[in-house]
């Protein structure tokens, strides 16, 4: 038993060390990559790019299910984006709360006989509407498909632009977000097939008429911890992975894709739990099988602000769903793991996802159990344990503070110093008991996945703060 505990503790130590060292490496890379991006932007001048006739048109796709309260405002906000050529396609996915009526009233919609040819799978379309006020708007009313993927596919079939950008109906894009996320496409369009922007928590910010007026940090600890998590995931994780062209996910809340490529891989998979992760991995697979030279980019400054769960219950559901989505995609693509045919994705990115993301909650719980067992058997060195715990705590804090630093030296969305101080304070507080709860939610997600429980559970929304 002692030998088992010894091996177990050593394995966990190595696992833990690797996990943190990888993140530390990503942090250093992300800081360098962000600095390069800032400098590059300085010479591009987005204002000039906007005037170019070579800017590719983009179709903004907005899947909407029971969004009557916010859809008109969200659509108006999208139509006001600063981009020379784009269309907005709103898909009413069988809403029962008058979403279509709200749009009809706001934009004077008229049903048209436009032909809707199904190229990628989606539930039947009931009608296609155009606006008498706004020629760039197209509304598709369809049978409920039960997933965002199904709604996005209906819009894909109707889109006529070279690029598509899927956004959440409840997200708020910064006015130049589309222009910024398209920057890598415009710089090297033959290689860049997709680009993702950063998603941030809107909780606590002031929003008026679908526009973000003031960035403030939310008051609730659950929300603040998520702000740090998002900063860490996007500004360090995705930035770092994208540096090596190993980005496995572009957030479903805001990402641009080459339409033809999405069609070639069969569009979104309607049954996918995490349609965003699923699509990007399938794109990697297709392009690598075709031996194409391509790049999937992450751009850290075009921001999509979205509401994050403000209560523990909603947050637990969301994290369980993310875990299910991860398992679903990794299991389906297990043949890519350690398969040299899939290059870096197969040899590094996916194995990392398996080892340090999917198995993480299990390994964490094994760690806690063996420590408890060692303590019970009296073989745990208390001194070593406490210091190891402290070291782990500080290392994780270092990564979190690093992500706040990254935000501070590059984008500085939080102008108020009190907000920055609170963010830093929470970097020290998030490890207990939030981290353990998070582990538990992910474990629940894993169990639910293997029990076949894929039911969508809605998140409680408090809406955007007006004052």
């Amino acid at each position, binding site marked *: 038993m002692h030998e088992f505990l010894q091996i177990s503790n050593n394995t966990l130590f190595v696992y833990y060390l690797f996990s943190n060292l990888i993140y530390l490496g990503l942090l250093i890379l992300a800081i360098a990559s962000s600095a390069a991006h800032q*400098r590059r932007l300085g010479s591009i001048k987005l204002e000039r790019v906007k005037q170019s006739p070579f800017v590719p048109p983009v179709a903004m796709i907005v899947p909407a299910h029971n969004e009557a309260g916010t859809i008109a405002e969200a659509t108006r906000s999208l139509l006001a984006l600063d981009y020379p050529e784009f269309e907005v396609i709103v898909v009413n996915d069988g809403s029962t709360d008058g979403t279509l009526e709200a749009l009809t009233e706001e934009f004077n919609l008229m049903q048209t006989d436009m032909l809707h040819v199904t190229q990628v799978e989606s539930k039947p379309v009931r009608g296609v509407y155009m606006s008498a006020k706004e*020629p760039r708007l197209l509304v598709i009313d369809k049978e409920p498909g039960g997933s965002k993927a199904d709604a996005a596919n209906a819009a894909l079939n109707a889109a006529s632009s070279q690029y598509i950008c899927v956004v959440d109906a409840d997200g708020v894009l910064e006015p130049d977000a589309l222009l910024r996320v398209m920057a890598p496409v415009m710089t090297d369009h033959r*290689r860049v097939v997709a680009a993702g922007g950063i998603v941030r928590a809107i909780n606590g910010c002031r929003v008026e008429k679908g526009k973000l007026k003031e960035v403030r940090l939310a008051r609730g600890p659950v929300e603040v911890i998520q702000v740090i998590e998002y900063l860490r995931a996007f500004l360090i994780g995705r930035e770092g992975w994208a540096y090596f062209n190993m980005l496995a996910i572009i957030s479903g809340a805001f990402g641009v894709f080459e339409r033809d490529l999405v069609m070639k891989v069969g569009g979104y998979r309607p049954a996918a739990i995490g349609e965003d992760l699923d699509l990007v991995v399938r794109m990697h697979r297709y392009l690598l099988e075709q031996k194409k030279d391509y790049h999937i980019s992450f751009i850290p400054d075009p921001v999509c602000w979205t509401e994050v769960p403000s209560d523990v219950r909603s947050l637990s559901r969301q994290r369980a769903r993310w875990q299910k989505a991860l398992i679903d995609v990794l299991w389906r693509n297990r043949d890519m793991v350690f398969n040299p045919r899939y290059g870096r994705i197969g040899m590094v990115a996916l194995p990392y996802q398996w080892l340090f993301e999917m198995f993480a909650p299990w390994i964490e719980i094994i760690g806690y159990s063996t420590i408890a067992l060692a303590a019970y058997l009296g073989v745990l*060195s208390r*001194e070593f344990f406490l210091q190891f715990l402290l*070291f782990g705590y500080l290392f994780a804090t*270092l990564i979190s*503070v*690093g992500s706040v630093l990254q935000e501070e030296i590059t984008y500085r969305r939080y102008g108020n110093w009190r907000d920055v101080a609170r963010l830093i304070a929470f970097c020290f507080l998030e490890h207990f008991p939030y981290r353990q709860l998070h582990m538990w939610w992910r474990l629940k997600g894993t169990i639910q996945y293997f029990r076949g429980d894929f039911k969508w559970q809605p998140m409680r929304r408090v809406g955007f703060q007006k004052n």
Partner: protein
Amino acid sequence: MGFLSNLVERLGPAQYVFGALVVTGVFIGLLLVFILVRRMLRRRYLEQRDRRTLVIRKQWDALVAGTYSPTQWRFDAMDRDIVESILTDRLDVCPPEEAAQLMRLLRTTGLLDTRIHEARALRGWDRRHALVSLGRMRAPEAIPALAEALDDPDAETRIAAVRGLGRTGLPRAAEPMLERLRFDTLQVPERPLLNALLNCCRSGPAVLVPYLRFADDRFRPLLARLLGEIATADLEEDLLLLASDPLAEVRASSARALARAKPRLALTALGNLAGDDEWFVRLRAVVALGALEDPRTIPVLIETLCDQNRYVRLRAAASLAALDGYLEEIIQQVLRTRDRYALQAFVSELERTGTLPRLVEALTDPTRQDYAEDALLGALRAGTQRHLLDAMARHPQAKTRKAVARLLARSQEQRLVPALERAAATSRSRREQRLARWLLAHLSEGGIERATQKMPV
């Protein structure tokens, strides 16, 4: 100290962890200090820059006239940066007379020479920044330094040089890029290159023509695309030649450019391109035909309205719907095609562009009434029943509702019956129910002339 070393010794293997712990703690502390100090320094820098900008702005006229001595600002890095920034921003928007004065200032104060030197001597990001800044100065003497950077082994530097050349906006600046393209020695992404060439050639597109004539198949589509954006009417002979190019991309670009040629020449060429084998060539031709806004394009556009490609049909419909004065004739011709997809595309476009609501409004305008009635009857036969029934039931003006109802009764369009029966049975508004019944009665009686019931509008 003795206590500390004893403590570290007592820790045994854990001393490494202890060391790491101390290092991590110190590192976090340093990060926090860095954030705070950086914020403070940044604020101080911005305030200082703001103050200096105000001082320079106050002296601006004297500075441009040369009476404010350059020695007062030229050797201070911040002041020099402010002056250069104001100068280049101004050069982007100012009239030619002022530009000449600003160029003189750039030359006499040595700002231009400094940038030329930096563009040649510096490395990395500093060089790239110097290249783009040099381009913004729009000086012909900057072109050689910018052209040298086109051959740099670093891709980012080459892109910066391309951007710099583009920013000059001088046709001469296009030549180094075109020369290298011709011999396939310029390795930069296509879009920044296109943008740069576009900026350079906008004021003199003729510079592209000789390169286009001798370009190979890799290079020709790119130049043709560029010409498609900026070609002027005096280049129409070259454009006609391109319209028969073996490469589809070149033909498509030619079609795009022909929208700006004289209709006399363009019509035949665009008519041919509208029947091209490649859908995107046909699409470009249809868009260009629409841009001509000439009724002679109607037969070709009607033909392309029946195209097998959806995008071509949609653009043909948009071009036809834009020919407002000829709608009646167009609708009749569209009906004669008996093509369901063509009808759908056209009717959708009429709805989307607001043409139908405009025609409905015109029903009460004595000067346009006859035309509107004929056009709407045609549109009704083409499939716009829903829109007209909506107008009859819900238009805010009673006079217009009445006019639509009379028109529908006169149409004898039996396809209206199912919708009217539904409205008569299920509509929430009693007025709408009565109106539906009235119209049903007239459709069965055979027209408004024999109407006996009073219209319940």
